[in-house]
């Protein structure tokens, strides 16, 4: 790409602007314009990417005017978060702080206050960035995502949705409407850890852990790892050796070894070599496990 096309003073391309007020309208526009259309949610990725010519669009579809897309509520199924919910709202939500505190913890690490006042949880996931700071904790919470389709809505597990090739599972005309975080086991301890080069940076590695203790042994357990492979992953091998065991340093050492084994960054990633990510993922996993155990103990 020529350096002469990039211009961050302006948006160096012309597009038609659409601001649908219903999901059906948005879906119809997406279907009509296909690849030429881009969804504008928070804009914190789309707009810089347009300036940098990483994205070319002739139609921009602003979905902020669709009221049902921004919400945080508790239902019988768990917590529902609309795709257009601002990261700042997730960070500050008393409900989320109470029920799934690692989500507020993770949201607070994204960018800055100004960015979180714009950026949305749906955007964070749909950009399918390997280092998306919301994807890793949502994965650890067994999140189910809700997709609108003209024929009806579809649900996927987040794992299915992030199918790992730098894109999410959305067909033409479909859009992410929100997600449901199932009720978490009582007394679950949760933690999110992240390392970047500064405190205002994307993750070089991030880790989330959710676990419970039963009779002093790990009962429910989820460990997820981000920024280390094309999409964040759940580390099943580590979970399986943790479950049913007493949390000891030796056990954690064994588990984080398995976590580090999942580190498979793309060759083109220049932030850090695989060795660094392996080593740091172990450190963050130890921290996340230790903190969630401590919390689980306190809650037990």
């Amino acid at each position, binding site marked *: 790409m020529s350096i002469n096309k990039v211009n*961050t*003073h*302006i*948006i160096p*391309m*012309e*597009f*038609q*602007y659409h*601001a649908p007020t219903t999901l059906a309208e948005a879906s119809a526009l997406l279907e009509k314009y296909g690849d030429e259309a881009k969804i*504008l949610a928070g*804009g*914190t990725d789309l*707009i*810089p990417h347009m*300036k*940098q010519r990483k994205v070319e669009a002739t139609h*921009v579809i*602003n979905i*902020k005017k669709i009221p049902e897309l921004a919400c945080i509520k508790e239902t019988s199924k768990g917590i529902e978060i609309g795709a257009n919910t601002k990261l*700042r709202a997730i960070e500050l939500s008393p409900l989320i702080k109470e029920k799934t505190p690692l989500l507020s913890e993770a949201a*607070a690490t994204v*960018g*800055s*206050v*100004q*960015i979180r*006042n*714009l950026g949305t949880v749906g955007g964070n996931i749909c950009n399918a960035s390997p280092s998306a700071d919301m994807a890793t904790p949502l994965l650890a919470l067994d999140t189910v995502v809700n997709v609108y389709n003209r024929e009806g809505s579809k649900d996927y597990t987040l794992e299915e949705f992030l199918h790992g090739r730098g894109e999410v599972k959305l067909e033409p005309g479909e859009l992410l409407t929100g997600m449901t975080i199932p009720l978490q086991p009582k007394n679950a301890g949760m933690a999110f850890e992240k390392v970047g080069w500064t*405190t*205002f940076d994307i993750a070089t590695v991030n880790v989330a852990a959710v676990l419970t203790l039963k009779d002093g042994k790990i009962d429910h357990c989820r460990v997820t790892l981000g920024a280390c492979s094309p999409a964040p992953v759940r580390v099943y091998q580590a979970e399986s050796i943790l479950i049913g065991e007493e949390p000891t340093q030796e056990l954690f050492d064994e588990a984080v070894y398995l976590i580090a084994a999942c580190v498979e960054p793309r060759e083109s990633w220049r932030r850090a070599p695989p060795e660094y990510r392996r080593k740091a993922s172990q450190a963050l996993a130890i921290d996340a496990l230790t903190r969630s155990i401590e919390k689980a103990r306190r809650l037990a």
Partner: protein
Amino acid sequence: MKIEITVNGRKRQFDVEPNKLLLNLVRDELHLTGTKYGCGIGECGACTVHLDGEAVLACMVLAVDADGKQVDTIEGVAEDGNLDPVQEAFIEEGAIQCGFCTPGFIMTTKALLKENPNPTEHEIREYLKGNYCRCTGYVNIINAVQSAAKKLQS
């Protein structure tokens, strides 16, 4: 496209292209040049304005998306020719060197103190971390925010 934005308390009508950024509308059409371009990609905070009362980056907002909203810039902070206590504190504490980041810092600080009138140093640092300053090492800025908090409380 025709839009209407309330800028620093005054309703204004504009006819803009969809790709016009709020930053450029404010700077070029309204000549409110206190809002600065620093990076264009959300890294520096120099373009911080308030959109419906919340601190956001004007370099990442389409002007058309601000239609019907309220935009406040650094130019609207002083009232009746008197500096705002946050502005006063920045001057008194030597928190300004080259001054290019200052409008952004003041806008973010105002948002912080509205939400949290008595922030700890850690809370101040966390809230301001999207505003970049190459000159001061932030020390006098943190002092200024603390001093502004005191002024506003008394």
